[in-house]
C-alpha cells in the first residue's frame, strides 16, 4: 500500500474541523491521515520541521484573513490547500499567488477536499470550480495567456459539467480536458511572486507532460508589472 499523506487542519470552527475529519475518515482508500488539528498558526510555528505533508488552511482565522501567512508556511516546507468560505476571485488569486497548491471553497469541500490534498501532496495541479471561476474572471495585466481550448475547458468546468461531459462537448477525451485545465493552472504557477511550491508544481507539470517549458511565460513580478503601467506611479514620475 502507498504511504498515507499526512495532513494538518488549521481551522477555528471545531464543527468544520469535525466535518473535514469525517471526510478524511470516509475516504474508501484511507489515503490521508490527519495528524494535527489547530485553531491558529502558533503551534505550527513552534515546530522546526514540517509536521505533515499538507496543511488544510482556513483562510479566515478568528476573524482575520491569513492569506499573507501562506508564503511563510510554504517556505517552511508545507503544501497548502486553502479551504475557505470566501470565494471572491481576488482572494482566490491572492491565495494561489502566495503559493497555495489549491483552493477549495466550503461548498466544494465534500467532493473535492480530499482529492485536492492528495494532488497537492504529489505537487499536481487541482483546479476546483471556484479556482476556474477566479481564472476566468482574472483581468490583471500580468495574467498568463490561456489558449482558446484551455479557456473553453475551464468555462465548461466552472459551469458545472463533469470532466467527461466537458470532453464530449469539446469532442476530446476526458484526459485531454484534465490536461487543458492543469496546463492553465501550471501557467499561473509560472507567474507572480516566486514560491518553492509553485516551482514544484511547475516541475511536476513538465515531468508529467502537462506543459512544455516553452509554453511557460517568462517570470514577471506583479509588483513590477504594476509600476510598468503608465500614469499609476507616484505623481511626477
Amino acid at each position, binding site marked *: 500500500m502507498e504511504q498515507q499523506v499526512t495532513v494538518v487542519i488549521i481551522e477555528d470552527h471545531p464543527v468544520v474541523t469535525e466535518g473535514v475529519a469525517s471526510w478524511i475518515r470516509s475516504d474508501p482508500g484511507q489515503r490521508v491521515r490527519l495528524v494535527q488539528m489547530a485553531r491558529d498558526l502558533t503551534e505550527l510555528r513552534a515546530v522546526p520541521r514540517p509536521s505533515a505533508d499538507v496543511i488544510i488552511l482556513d483562510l479566515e482565522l478568528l476573524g482575520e484573513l491569513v492569506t499573507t501567512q501562506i508564503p511563510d508556511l510554504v517556505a517552511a516546507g508545507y503544501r497548502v490547500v486553502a479551504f475557505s468560505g470566501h470565494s471572491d*476571485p481576488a482572494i482566490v488569486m491572492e491565495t494561489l499567488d502566495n503559493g497555495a497548491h489549491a483552493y477549495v471553497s466550503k461548498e466544494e469541500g465534500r467532493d473535492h477536499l480530499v482529492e485536492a490534498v492528495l494532488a497537492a501532496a504529489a505537487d499536481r495541479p487541482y483546479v476546483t470550480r471556484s479556482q476556474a471561476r477566479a481564472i*476566468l*474572471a482574472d483581468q490583471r495585466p500580468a495574467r498568463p495567456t490561456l489558449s482558446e481550448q484551455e479557456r473553453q475547458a475551464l*468555462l465548461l468546468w466552472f*459551469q458545472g459539467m*463533469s470532466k467527461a*461531459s466537458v470532453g464530449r462537448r469539446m469532442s476530446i477525451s476526458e484526459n485531454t480536458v484534465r490536461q487543458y485545465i492543469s496546463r492553465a493552472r501550471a501557467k499561473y504557477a509560472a507567474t507572480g511572486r516566486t514560491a518553492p511550491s509553485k516551482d514544484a508544481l511547475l516541475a511536476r507539470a513538465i515531468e508529467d507532460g502537462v506543459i512544455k517549458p516553452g509554453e511557460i511565460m517568462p517570470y514577471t513580478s506583479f509588483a513590477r508589472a504594476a509600476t510598468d503601467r503608465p500614469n499609476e506611479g507616484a505623481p511626477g514620475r
Partner: protein
Amino acid sequence: MTAVQPTTMMSGRYQRAFTIAVVVLVAGWHLAGAGGQLLDYRPAYGSFAFQGAMWLVMALAITAGSVLVLRGAPGWRAAWVVAVIALAASTAAAAASPAGQMLAVNWAWGSAGWTGVLVLLRRRFAELAWFLAAEALAILGVQAWDGLNRADLAGFLALLAWSTGGQVAVAAGVRALDLAAGQAATAAAGEHAARERAATAQIIRVARHARWLALQESAVPLVAELAAGTADPGDAQVRVRCAVQAARLRRLLAEGDEVAGSLVHELHASADMAERRGVAVEIETAGALPQVPGPARRVITDAAIAILTAARSQARITLAVVAAGIAVSFVADTGAVVPLPAAGEGVAIEQQQDGGMFWAEARWNSR
C-alpha cells in the same frame, strides 16, 4: 451624475462668456488706452523705443494670459509668471520715464493691473490684492526715487483710486456673476431632472402595462381554468404549468426592480420557485458582467424557468463574461432533455444531455 453634468456645463458656459468679456476689456485697454497714451506723450519719453518695447512685452503677456484663461483655469505658476512679467515691464517703463513727469506719462500701470486681473481672476481674491498692492508699491518706489512731494503723492493716490478701483470692481463683478451663473444652472438642472423623472415614470407605466398584457395571455387563462374546474390541480401537467407561471410572476416583479446586475437578480427570482420545491440552486458569476438588454434577458430567464421547473434536486446557474458578451449556463438533474423556449434577441442557446444531467448555455453577444 447626470444631474451634475448639465449644471457644471451650463455654468461653465456662462463663465467662459465672462472670461471672454474680460479678455476683450484688457486687450482694448492696452491697445486704445495705454497705446493711445504712449503715442500722445511720444516726445516726452527719454527713449520712445524702450517704452515701445515694454508696451510690446506687455502685449505679449496679455496675449499669453488670454490664451491661458481661454484654455481653462491656469495653474498658479503659469498665472504668476504672466503677472510678474507684466509687473516687471510696468516697473521698467516707469523707471525709464523722465523724472517729475512719470505719473503723467505712465501708460503701463493700468495695463499691468489689468493683466493681473486677467490671469488671477478665478484664483483667490487675496492673490489679486497682493499683486495690485505690489504694483502700486513699485510705482510708488519709482516715484520716491525721483523725489516725492505732496503734489506727486496726491497724483499717485488719484491714479491708484482710478485704476486699481476699476480693476477690483471688475474682478469682484465677475465673481458675483460666476456665483449667479452657478445658481441659474442649478435651477435649470433641477427642472431638467424633474422632466427626466416624468419621462421615467412614463416608461415605467408602459412597462407595467406590457407586463399586465403578458400575464393576460399566460397566467390569467390558467387561473381561469383552475377556477372553472377544467384544470385539475392533482394533474402533474397542471402543477408544472402552475410552477412555470409562478416563476414568471416572480420574474415580472423582479424586472420592475431597477437594480445593478438585473439579469442575476431576475435569475434569483426565477430560481425562487424551484428552491421552494427543495431544489438546491447555486448561482455564480465570473467577471464583471455587461448589461444585457431587457428582451434578451427575458429569453435567458425563460430558459432558466424551463430548466429549473424540470430540475429534481439540484441546479447550477453560472454567468461568465465571454469575448463579446455573456454566457449563462444551466446544469440540472432534469433526467431528460428539457424543451427550451425559442432563442432570439441576440441570444443563442445550446444544450447537451449527459446521463441524468442536462446542460444548456445561453450566449448573448453585444455585437
